[in-house]
Every structure is written in structure tokens, then in C-alpha cells.
């Protein structure tokens, strides 16, 4: 069964703290994504990665960075958390190749509150 695991379901941090959100997938997928989900705004892409050590900005990369040192792991980093980064963060992965259907497999989300 396909699995995308996000390390923390709920986090509470203070303004200015550095925050790491970890995501691991066990499907050997090339692509990994970080989305942010806010009520009424849907899912917005922060960053994505096609391969190890490769990253591309999404629609809202400001205030975030990412790291992909291993194929199965994609980390989202908030260098200095701010209250407007309080949100639900969703990690996803997909297969890259001729059989690519575009289907994303999502983790269960990490709800971050910044005080």
C-alpha cells in the first residue's frame, strides 16, 4: 500500500523559531511536493522536487526552503516562522515516467500553529 508519512501531525511554534517539516514516501517516486492548505484558498504549491538535490519554486515559496538529500525524503523548512505561516501543510509524491498519470499521493498533513 502506498504511503506518504509526515512526521508531525500537530506543531505549535513561536514567532522566529526555525521549523522543520519532514516527509517520507515509500513508493520510490521521483516527484515530491509541499502544499499549503488554507480554508477557502485550496491547496497552494510551495516547492517541489523532481529528483534528489533538485528543487523548484512553486506559487508561494517566500519564507520557505526545502531539502531533498535522499529520494524518499523531502523536508520543508521555515527559517523564521511567522504567524501568517499558521496553516495545514501537505506533502505529496508522484511517479515520473511514461506511466505517469499525474496522480498525487498525499500525506495526512501537518497542522502548524505559530504563536
Amino acid at each position, binding site marked *: 500500500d502506498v504511503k*506518504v508519512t509526515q512526521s508531525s501531525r500537530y506543531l505549535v511554534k513561536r514567532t522566529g523559531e526555525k521549523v522543520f517539516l519532514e516527509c517520507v514516501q515509500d513508493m520510490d517516486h*521521483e*516527484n515530491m511536493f509541499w*502544499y499549503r492548505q488554507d*480554508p*477557502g*484558498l*485550496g*491547496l*497552494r*504549491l510551495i516547492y*517541489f522536487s*523532481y529528483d534528489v538535490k533538485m528543487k523548484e519554486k*512553486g506559487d508561494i515559496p517566500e519564507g520557505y526552503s526545502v531539502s531533498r538529500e535522499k529520494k524518499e525524503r523531502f523536508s520543508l523548512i521555515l527559517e523564521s516562522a511567522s504567524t501568517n505561516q499558521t496553516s495545514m501543510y*501537505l506533502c*505529496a509524491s*508522484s511517479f*515520473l515516467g511514461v506511466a*505517469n*498519470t*499525474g*496522480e*498525487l*499521493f*498525499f*500525506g*495526512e*498533513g501537518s497542522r502548524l500553529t505559530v504563536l
Partner: protein
Amino acid sequence: GESVGLHLPTLSVQEGDNSIINCAYSNSASDYFIWYKQESGKGPQFIIDIRSNMDKRQGQRVTVLLNKTVKHLSLQIAATQPGDSAVYFCAETRSGAGSYQLTFGKGTKLSVIP
């Protein structure tokens, strides 16, 4: 249908009735569309997809209709059940990019009345 504001559109349907969830997409170059279902406390899950060379595709109790002329997508759920209660997102993309970056709609909340 999809909203551009902060309020999530809500559709309330009696159990056993059919549900129709609508989505207007913006990019005329998009040629691949997906519907996702997100239950409370979970990540979105794939329901059904359709490519632009089709105007209808059926799955188990679900049908997706695509009208490219007016850039409209709909998801029909037959005999709606309580387990169908969730937020539904449409997503669009243009194939050929390799990794299929999806653009998501803002979601519609489906509530099933027992």
C-alpha cells in the same frame, strides 16, 4: 462550485440522491483533470481523472464530465452515501511537463444528510 473568496462552497445532499459538484478551470491549455476527495483530518485522495480528448469518464458511482468549450468540469456522485461527506477539489494541468504540476481549485464541501 469553486469559490474565489474565503468561504468554502457547501453542497448538502440527502442520502441516496445524486450529487453534482462543479468546477470552472482557468487555463485553456490544460488537458488533464483530476478530482480529489479530502475527508476530515486526512490528505486528499484521488477519485477519478479525465483527459481533454474525452468529455465523459465513469468510475464506480462517480462520473466526470468535461466541457472544454466553457472550461467546466463536474463530478457526479450517484446514490450519495454518508461516507461521501468530504471536501472535493478539482485539479488541472498541462501534460508534457513531465512531473504534472497540478493547479487545484478551492474546494467544495459535500455534506450528506442521513
